[in-house]
């Protein structure tokens, strides 16, 4: 798979950066001429991943979030969102729809939305060692979700 373009971004886990992060990824993705639909889907998925870093990984502390996005031949876009926070002990449970540890104002749908709006979702995590979420989206494809 040939890489055509890439970008890297590091931001502190402040909630004001949620909008910035999804817009930055959208601006990068826009270079690959996606449909409005595809761009919106990716934006939503990125927003969920970054929010997880802020709400869960770092909770009441502030830490680094690294985002890198790459465009590959054939219109494949991969976005990796990495934190160095608390990590997830039970990934399967965390990914269960409606499950949340963050109280009643959080819907527990973060991972469910990421899964629904991308073509592939990969989550790697270990307690105390942070979490890496990789979102893959196929652009301009008829078989894409």
């Amino acid at each position, binding site marked *: 798979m040939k890489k055509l373009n890439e970008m890297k971004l590091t931001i502190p886990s402040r909630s004001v950066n949620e*909008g910035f992060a999804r817009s930055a990824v959208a601006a990068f993705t826009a270079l690959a001429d996606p449909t409005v639909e595809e761009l919106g889907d990716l934006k939503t998925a990125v927003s969920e991943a970054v929010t997880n870093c802020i709400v869960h990984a770092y909770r009441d502390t502030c830490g680094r979030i690294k985002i890198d996005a790459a465009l590959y031949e054939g219109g494949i876009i991969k976005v990796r969102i990495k934190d160095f926070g608390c990590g997830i002990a039970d990934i399967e449970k965390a990914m269960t729809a409606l499950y949340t540890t963050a109280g009643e*104002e959080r819907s527990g749908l973060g991972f469910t*939305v990421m899964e629904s709006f991308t073509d592939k979702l990969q989550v790697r995590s270990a307690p105390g060692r942070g979490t890496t979420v990789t979102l893959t989206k196929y652009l301009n494809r008829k078989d894409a979700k």
Partner: protein
Amino acid sequence: MKIETAPNGRLTLRLTGEIDHHSAAAMRKTADAALIRFRPRELVLDFSDVSFMDSSGVGFVMGRSKRAAAFDCKTAVCGLKERDRRIMKLSGLESLVAFYTDERKETT
């Protein structure tokens, strides 16, 4: 957010801009203050002017509908865009909240 009241006990909150975890905090404050002040019989959350939302929008609706239900106020949601509707559907909220497709449904 624009707040509209009607004599029949309906409170309409017209949400504007982007709803994410960051912006939801202020929206929540405004909405809850309006709920306490007006004590409506029906709460309508109008998403027509929302340009983006993630699952924080679902949490917002869940939270407000719970508070409203505490004093027997029904909640309705209208004006959702296609993607936002898909996100709402993932939550199973339909059993608690009425969803209307058009912009400002009369919900007598």
